[in-house]
């Protein structure tokens, strides 16, 4: 990168909103998206015409789904672009909105994610594989679970504790798809999916929406936005997969290099992080990623989990929203919902889920394919 986001003018999250993540329903995506956008506008205390540019993240709605949704907010003629980047679609849309504002093109921009659980379509590359039709994402992560357990002598029970924690957090989140605490016995006793993974250790793909509004100092002044509730974005990094040595998981390696760049950009150390929202679509991922981000040496994640260091109120709250496992993963909205959760935490507005004295937060997403996005945000308190 020639320049990073932190080299440009400051950009802040000033409004956040959701439509609850939920099981597939008859509700049109337009209703889901509008609910999230209107909540974000209300949160920022601005009107729709203030939004100078929109980024719509969606992976499963088909071509150009944004305009039929945004038109119901009133006619402004502001530019609109759709972003599809697999699981990281929302994170990517957020990054582009931040870049536009930090670069001085706009003073106020919207990133909104919305999706319904439609079939995933992948293009044919023309390259055949031995058995790709037999290896869906949960089996990819079942293999990683087996590898992690063997390498670090971790048990199936240890790894499943991630799901117990994240369901406990999700039970306190009114926007979560799963809002029920689960015991280790319930997690382990659930339906077997693949390898050691049971259904409560896997994200429930559903539907929903999340929206955030970002603004410059000028935008904040012009629209009389409360600067004390504005959360600065201090780093934004996107990377894609490279070739790694055999036996090195690309998911963890890609997260390691992306998080390192983001921490350097924000001039922060892993120990400075108070809250992290990360891509825990499957339990083992949370362990891989906290180790890759640098919270602890490889293989020590289970001990941190058992010590309560990853709980709300612990050393660093991981997935206080409930994460992808409990809050859910409607694809397009997910990365934007993470930014919303970090914003609430850093404002001190997370209610029952509030991590005490949260000042520095990180949001992390990976997307199949494979891409990784990391953002760091800091509150004023």
């Amino acid at each position, binding site marked *: 990168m020639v320049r990073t986001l932190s080299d440009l003018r400051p950009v802040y999250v000033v409004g956040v909103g959701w439509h609850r993540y939920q099981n597939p329903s008859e509700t049109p995506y337009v209703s889901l998206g509008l609910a999230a956008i209107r909540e974000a506008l209300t949160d920022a205390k601005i009107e729709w015409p203030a939004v100078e540019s929109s980024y719509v993240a969606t992976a499963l709605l088909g071509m150009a789904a944004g305009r039929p949704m945004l038109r119901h907010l009133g006619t402004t003629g502001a530019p609109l672009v759709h972003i599809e980047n697999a699981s990281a679609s929302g994170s990517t849309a957020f990054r582009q909105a931040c870049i536009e504002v930090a670069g001085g093109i706009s003073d106020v921009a919207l990133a909104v994610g919305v999706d319904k659980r439609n079939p995933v379509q992948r293009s044919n590359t023309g*390259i*055949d*594989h*031995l*058995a790709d*039709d*037999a*290896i*869906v994402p*949960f*089996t990819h992560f*079942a*293999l*990683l*679970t*087996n*590898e992690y357990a*063997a*390498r670090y002598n971790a048990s199936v029970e240890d790894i499943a504790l991630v799901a117990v924690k994240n369901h406990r957090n999700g039970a306190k989140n009114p926007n979560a798809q799963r809002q029920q605490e689960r015991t280790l016995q319930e997690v382990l006793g659930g*339906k*077997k*999916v*693949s*390898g*050691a993974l049971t259904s409560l250790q896997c994200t429930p793909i559903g539907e929903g929406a999340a929206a955030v509004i970002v603004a410059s100092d000028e935008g904040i002044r012009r629209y009389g936005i409360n600067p004390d509730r504005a959360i600065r974005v201090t780093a934004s990094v996107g990377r894609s997969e490279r*070739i790694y040595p*055999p*036996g090195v998981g690309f998911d963890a390696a890609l997260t390691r290099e992306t998080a390192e760049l983001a921490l350097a950009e924000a001039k922060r150390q892993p120990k400075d992080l108070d809250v992290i929202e990360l891509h825990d679509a499957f339990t083992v991922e949370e362990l891989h990623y906290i180790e890759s981000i640098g919270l602890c040496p490889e293989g020590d994640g289970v001990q941190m989990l058992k010590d309560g260091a990853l709980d709300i109120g612990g050393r660093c709250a991981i997935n206080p929203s409930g994460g992808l496992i409990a809050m859910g993963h409607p694809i397009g909205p997910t990365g934007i919902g993470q930014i919303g959760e970090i914003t609430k935490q850093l404002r001190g507005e997370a209610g029952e889920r509030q991590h005490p004295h949260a000042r520095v937060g990180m949001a992390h997403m990976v997307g199949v394919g494979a891409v990784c996005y990391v953002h760091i945000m800091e509150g004023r308190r």
Partner: protein
Amino acid sequence: MSTDKLLKSNIYSFGSGGPRGSAPVLLGGQCRCGYVFFPMQAYGCEQCGNHGDALTPCELSTGGTLLAEAVVHLHADKNRPAPFTIVKVALDDGPVVRSVLAEDSAAVSPGQRMTARLVPVRSGESGETVLDLRFTAAI
């Protein structure tokens, strides 16, 4: 003459020992830069970006070491009725591949030495036997 037919003759072939006599070989490729990949493709090297003459086909041994295994309990595709086991194998020749474990293989865990063989999966249109590649614990 064998009446056996390969399900994916574009990415593996019979080994030197005949149709079912020995381990099959994987049809990989090597770049001038040294990078070895599977399967063979002519689009360009993932390591250095070279294409054309820089990429040459090469046969890869199915010998390798198991990195991970998972028994799949749920699978939506009816052509692959669960349960079956997926293995991730670091080939001695370089690439890491993932495929199905032979049903009659001994139980495997990470570190296990692996090989592959061709197993009948169905009958073809003219009565021939269709073979597909399965990994199995090396004896």
